């Protein structure tokens, strides 16, 4: 029975043990009796004497076996011990007459290691776990079992006690916000191309029904009026807000180290694509919500992680929570149709672009008239400890990936590399390039 409901940083497991007798106990008893019998039959006192310590050892350790109904209580406590570390400590209250506890532990889902401590504990079982990644993660896991005197009785392994945390991703401040082709509403922070209130000067136009009298520009009327009834008004652009949909492709999570792509060890893989995706998604959500826009979120591998578009501070908390709990789910892509995108929305597709599924989605949305920005979250590759075959396989995967990015660009999907690598433009400059107003190339380039 594990209890962590009241305090997630303190996990307590109370268990009743099921004891198993060691085969060595039976072997020791049988050996002792056999030697005594041979000594008796052969009239050899020395053989009978050799059986004596064996029988006595078996009797003593059997006499000191742990009681079946005694309960064990194991408590795992987690505590922040710095910006990038979490401390843990394990307290074991073993059943009466248990002499030894065998523990098997793993940190960040890595290789399991075993160690054995005397019970009651003579020292502290504690350590720290580095926070290397964002998102939900298993920080530390302990499996344990108890041994009686001389290990003649061993408890069956209990349910592991696991320390988990959801680590919030870091945020990058975004100053230049790319906008969708079509802004919506009559209020907001962005200037629309439609006539209305709040924006900058648009043009001088003939007074029509619905124009306010205070907008009449008398100087322009004096200059341009052909007839006595002509009135001219100064028109301004309206302000509007944008609808943004963040779509995260969390089906795969690959790190910098190519050699770790198959093993996916949290401690060895370096920055992972989902780390970058979470950082990008939370930064984008923060920036657009701060600008008063409506933001929605969808995780391609989980229908449960879908947040409809809305605005406001409370909605931002909801979005950030949905983003930080995103984890690779190993669920195949099951959408028969692409997820529904609100009319006129700007779609950010955060993907490592390692397969065609996300590319097809981006092209579908682009074909429906949405502005789509594919955020490439694949970190630059590193080849430490990689084999020649792994490097060759990586090269082939990257060639296919380059083909996909070429197709995306050719169909009008904007591409944004989130990772700031040496020699590339800073992220702010890349976002500023994407935020520039589109060139007016007929009706296709006009933001309406």
């Amino acid at each position, binding site marked *: 029975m594990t209890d962590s409901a009241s305090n997630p940083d303190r996990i307590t497991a109370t268990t009743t043990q099921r*004891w198993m007798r*060691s*085969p*060595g*106990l039976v*072997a*020791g008893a*049988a*050996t002792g009796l*056999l*030697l005594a019998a*041979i000594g008796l039959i*052969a009239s*050899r*006192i*020395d*053989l009978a*004497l*050799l*059986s*004596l*310590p*064996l*029988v*006595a*050892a078996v*009797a*003593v*350790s059997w*006499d000191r076996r742990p*009681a*079946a*109904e005694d309960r064990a209580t194991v408590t795992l406590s987690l505590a922040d011990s710095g910006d990038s570390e979490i401390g*843990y400590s394990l307290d074991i209250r073993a059943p009466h007459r248990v*002499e*030894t506890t*065998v*523990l*098997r*532990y793993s*940190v960040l889902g890595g290789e399991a*290691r*075993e*160690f*054995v*401590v*005397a019970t009651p504990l*003579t*020292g*502290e*079982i*504690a*350590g*720290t776990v580095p926070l290397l990644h964002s998102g939900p993660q298993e920080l530390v896991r302990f499996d344990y079992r108890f*041994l009686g*005197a*001389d*290990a*003649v009785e*061993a408890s069956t392994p209990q349910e592991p006690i696991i320390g988990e945390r959801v680590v919030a991703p870091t945020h990058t401040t975004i100053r230049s916000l790319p906008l969708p082709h079509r802004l919506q509403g009559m209020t907001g922070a962005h200037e629309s191309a439609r006539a209305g209130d709040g924006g900058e000067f648009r043009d001088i136009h003939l007074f029509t029904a619905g124009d306010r009298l205070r907008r009449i520009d008398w100087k322009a009327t004096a200059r341009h009026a052909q007839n006595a009834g002509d009135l001219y008004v100064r028109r301004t652009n309206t302000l509007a807000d944008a609808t943004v949909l963040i779509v995260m492709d969390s089906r795969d999570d690959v790190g910098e180290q190519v050699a770790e792509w198959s093993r996916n060890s949290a401690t060895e893989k370096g920055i992972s694509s989902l780390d970058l995706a979470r950082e990008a998604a939370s930064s984008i959500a923060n920036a657009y919500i701060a600008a008063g826009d409506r933001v929605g979120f969808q995780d391609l591998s989980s229908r449960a992680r879908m947040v409809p578009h809305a605005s406001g501070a409370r909605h931002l908390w909801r979005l950030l929570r949905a983003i930080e709990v995103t984890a690779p789910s190993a669920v195949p892509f099951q959408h028969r149709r692409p997820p529904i995108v609100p009319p006129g929305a700007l779609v950010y597709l955060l993907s490592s672009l390692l397969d065609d599924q996300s590319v097809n989605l981006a092209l579908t949305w682009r074909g429906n008239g949405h502005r789509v920005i594919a955020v490439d979250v694949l970190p630059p590759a590193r080849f430490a400890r990689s084999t020649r075959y792994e490097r060759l396989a990586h090269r082939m995967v990257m060639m296919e990936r380059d083909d996909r990015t070429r197709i995306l660009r050719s169909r009008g999907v904007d591409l944004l590399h989130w990772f700031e690598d040496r020699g590339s433009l800073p992220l702010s400059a890349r976002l500023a390039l994407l935020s520039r107003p589109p060139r007016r190339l007929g009706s296709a380039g006009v933001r309406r």
Partner: protein
Amino acid sequence: MSLRDRARPPDLPAADARVPGIAARVMLAIVGVLVSLVAYGSSGWSVVGILLSLSAAWAPRNLLAWVLIVFLALGELSRHAALTWQFLVLLAGVHLLHVLGLLTLELPWRGWVQPAVFARPLLRFIAIQIPAQLLAVVALLALAPNAHGHRPVTVAAFTVIGAAALAGLTLLLLRARPNEHLGR
């Protein structure tokens, strides 16, 4: 697996778990080899004892440690029962093999062990060995036949002493305990 892989992990949560788990198996092999050499000397049988020792350490689940104990004890049949240092070493050796055999069955050989884990089995070993060695000395002096085949104490006396020892052992095994094992 390289030696580097077997190095003690720096982030091990129990700071004083510094004995490699394989030490119990190594000890089992060393004790088995030494006692085999003591029991069989330079005869060919000692090779069997060494092989059994190494096999028992390599695969404890096969319970070869207890086969080795029987093998070492049967070596006594080739000699006359007498109080010698070899017999006393054998008496301690078979007991130690039993304790190490039990530990190797449960201790993870790749893990790391606190030294305190070995303390209580060692204390029990000493607590059993001291009376066992004393009893062996007395029994062999009193009961073992001398060079002329004469026994210092008669069979009748041995029967009385043996019966008393068995009664004591029976009482130890059947000693009433609180009802803590009723649920088994």
